[in-house]
């Protein structure tokens, strides 16, 4: 063949082979590449774009490790150059690379070294595949396996197969069974199942149950672990039978529920505690209501007794009693028993009583009941103390008020007495001064002298009254005890009372009126005073009646007028010193306010009583009683 022909054929062959290579590279799904001895890309197939997002031109001249994940770059670079140095082939090397748009791409790379004529490394030639998906799935699988494994391990679900019968054994156990029981698999397969039970007799019951059951049965059992500790497990198993119905074996699972049970017990305890608190609160609430509502202590104590009977654990056999200041209070009658609980009632540190709860039948008292009882006793004690303090305060304040009032009356007495004395004195002093000093016409002098005279008499009467009051109050009043003829004294008394023609006096005495026992002067004074009042307080005039009626032991005397009358609320104040009624019609009338006080004192000194009946605007009648004179021997 001619030289040109040879060259042309060689070129064709090369081109074909090149094309073949390209086709393979393109269709291989792998990215084919070549790097030099420093690691720079000298060739890259178009697949690089699918894999790393770069076009072949962008890759050429760049170092291969530039396309590694930055976190791994150093590690991978050193690993790769290690291989380069040894001029070894690279097989299925998986490493993370960075796609042009930033996401991670896992590449599985294989390559062979390119050796030069002198054995020097010229570079590497190889292919890389995108295995990201595969890597991801592998990772997920690994993780799920981990999770599953840990789940199975942590849930501590023991799975077993065992044979029936009293000496049944484990046919098969899973690793969890070892953890749960503390025995090794070998030990478990050797031992009787029942030796795991805390109470081996329980297995018999379980077997009976299983014999009768058709499906799976769950029981809570207590196991003793190898180290002696006791756990609670939930055992669920099902019997696998043969054609004749005989049990071949049990398949079951065991779960350690010790923790769960503990939590449940805690919850139960909390619920009970909650219940107790609610009960206690409602009890105390009832108690508070009773304290607020009831007005007397005995009522409250009875409420407490009733409350306690209902609030205690066994109401039908509960009885309660409150003892306070040596008195007993119950809701109903019962005989005390020796099953007794009590709490002291303390008031300001002093024990004043007890609250007692009895059971009619032997029953233990609980801690909760004890604490509730103490609570109730405290609350009751405090409430009583509060009441007593308030009562004391009220008493003290009432006493203070009474003292103030007494003081006021005393001051009042002195003030008014002073005024009553000094006013006439002013008149006396003044007019006498005038008379002495200068000349005045006869009528004037006469007028002045009359005034002096009147006021002197008035002053005299006031002085008498004041002396009487003084004697009465100091207990130095002497009262004689003589038989007295009432009608005669009455007539005499009336005569000394000044009145005008508008008034008329009527006497009304029974014919056979017995004599009364008393002091003549005092009786006269009483009648004079009462008749004088009758006249004064009926300024319009009218009839004044002096009457008497006989009763078995006494005589009742009355003096009535048809005057202004006395209102009911004023009647209480009538007989006190210096108290004049604050009504204009009364105040217009001259009076010291002492008259009735003295009359009352005199009547009572003679062994009688005095009272009044009156109606505003109609008139008044004063009644007083006197004892009958009884002859010696009668």
């Amino acid at each position, binding site marked *: 063949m001619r030289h040109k022909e040879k060259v042309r054929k060689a070129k064709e062959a090369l081109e074909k082979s090149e094309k073949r290579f390209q086709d393979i590279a393109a269709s291989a799904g792998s990215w084919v590449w070549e790097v030099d001895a420093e690691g720079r890309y000298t060739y890259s197939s178009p697949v690089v774009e699918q894999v790393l997002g770069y076009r072949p031109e962008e890759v050429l001249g760049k170092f291969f490790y530039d396309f590694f994940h930055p976190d791994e770059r150093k590690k991978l670079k050193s690993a790769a150059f290690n291989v380069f140095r040894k001029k070894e082939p690279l097989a299925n090397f998986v490493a993370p690379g960075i796609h042009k748009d930033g996401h991670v791409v896992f590449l599985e790379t294989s390559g062979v070294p390119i050796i030069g004529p002198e054995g020097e490394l010229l570079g590497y030639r190889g292919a890389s595949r995108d295995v990201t998906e595969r890597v991801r799935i592998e990772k997920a699988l690994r993780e799920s396996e981990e999770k599953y494994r840990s789940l199975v391990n942590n849930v501590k679900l023991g799975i077993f197969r065992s044979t029936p019968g009293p000496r049944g054994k484990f046919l098969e156990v899973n690793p969890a069974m070892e953890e749960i029981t503390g025995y090794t698999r070998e030990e478990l397969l050797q031992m009787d199942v029942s030796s795991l039970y805390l109470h081996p007799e329980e297995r018999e019951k379980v077997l009976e149950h299983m014999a009768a059951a058709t499906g799976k049965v769950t029981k809570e059992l207590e196991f003793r672990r190898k180290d002696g500790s006791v756990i609670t497990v939930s055992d669920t198993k099902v019997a696998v039978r043969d054609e004749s119905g005989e049990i071949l074996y049990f398949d079951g699972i065991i779960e350690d529920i010790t923790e769960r049970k503990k939590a449940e017990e805690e919850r139960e305890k909390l619920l009970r505690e909650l219940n107790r608190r609610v009960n206690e609160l409602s009890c105390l609430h009832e108690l508070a209501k009773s304290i607020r509502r009831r007005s007397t202590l005995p009522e409250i104590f009875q409420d407490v007794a009733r409350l306690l009977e209902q609030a205690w654990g066994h109401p039908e056999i509960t009885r309660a009693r409150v003892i306070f200041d040596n008195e007993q209070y119950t809701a109903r009658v019962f005989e005390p028993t020796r099953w007794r609980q009590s709490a002291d009632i303390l008031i300001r540190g002093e024990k004043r009583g007890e609250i007692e709860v009895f059971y009619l039948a032997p029953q233990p008292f609980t801690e909760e009941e004890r604490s509730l009882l103490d609570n109730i006793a405290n609350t009751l004690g405090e409430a009583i103390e509060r009441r007593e303090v308030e009562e004391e305060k009220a008493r003290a304040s009432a006493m203070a008020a009474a003292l103030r009032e007494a003081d006021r009356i005393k001051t009042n007495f002195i003030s008014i007495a*002073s*005024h009553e004395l*000094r*006013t006439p004195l*002013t008149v006396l002093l*003044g007019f006498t001064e005038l008379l002495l000093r200068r000349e005045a016409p006869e009528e004037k002098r006469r007028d002045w002298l009359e005034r002096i005279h009147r006021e002197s008499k008035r002053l005299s009467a006031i002085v008498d009254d004041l002396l009487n009051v003084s004697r009465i109050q100091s207990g130095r009043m002497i009262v004689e005890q003589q038989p007295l003829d009432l009608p005669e004294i009455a007539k005499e008394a009336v005569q000394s009372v000044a009145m005008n023609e508008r008034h008329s006096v009527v006497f009304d005495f029974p014919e056979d009126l017995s004599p009364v026992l008393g002091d003549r002067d005092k009786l006269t004074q009483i009648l004079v005073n009462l008749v004088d009042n009758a006249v004064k307080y009926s300024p319009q005039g009218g009839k004044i009646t002096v009457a008497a009626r006989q009763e078995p032991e006494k005589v009742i005397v009355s003096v009535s007028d048809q005057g202004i009358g006395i209102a009911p609320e004023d009647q209480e104040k009538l007989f006190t010193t210096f108290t004049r009624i604050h009504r204009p019609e009364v105040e217009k009338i001259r009076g010291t306010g002492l008259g009735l006080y003295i009359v009352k004192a005199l009547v009572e000194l003679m062994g009688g009583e005095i009272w009044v009946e009156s109606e505003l605007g109609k008139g008044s009648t004063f009644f007083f009683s006197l004892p009958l004179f009884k002859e010696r021997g009668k």
Partner: protein
Amino acid sequence: MVVDDEENVLALVSAALEDDERFELLLARGGKEALELARREKPELILLDVLMPEIDGYEVCRRLKEDPETASIKIIMLTALVEESGEMKAKAAGADGYLTKPFSIATLRNTLEEILFGPE
């Protein structure tokens, strides 16, 4: 003006002062009458008894002093009261002076002169 529920006292003061030209007398027989008369006649001075029914003297004094129409009227209280607080009460009610019963005519005149005409 003289205010007292005791007619005798009114008569006494009238008799004592009627010859004196400096004084013109008005008489009132109770608190109510006093207040009305004071507002109407506006006397220069009121002799006011303390212990009177219905309204007591201190109250009358207070009311007179609180009313701008009558606040400038001088008031002398006539009191028979024993307690020391009498003077304090009179001052508290706004009175300009006070006399204790029984008083002599001389004392009455002196006090009137002092309050009405000032110290001489």
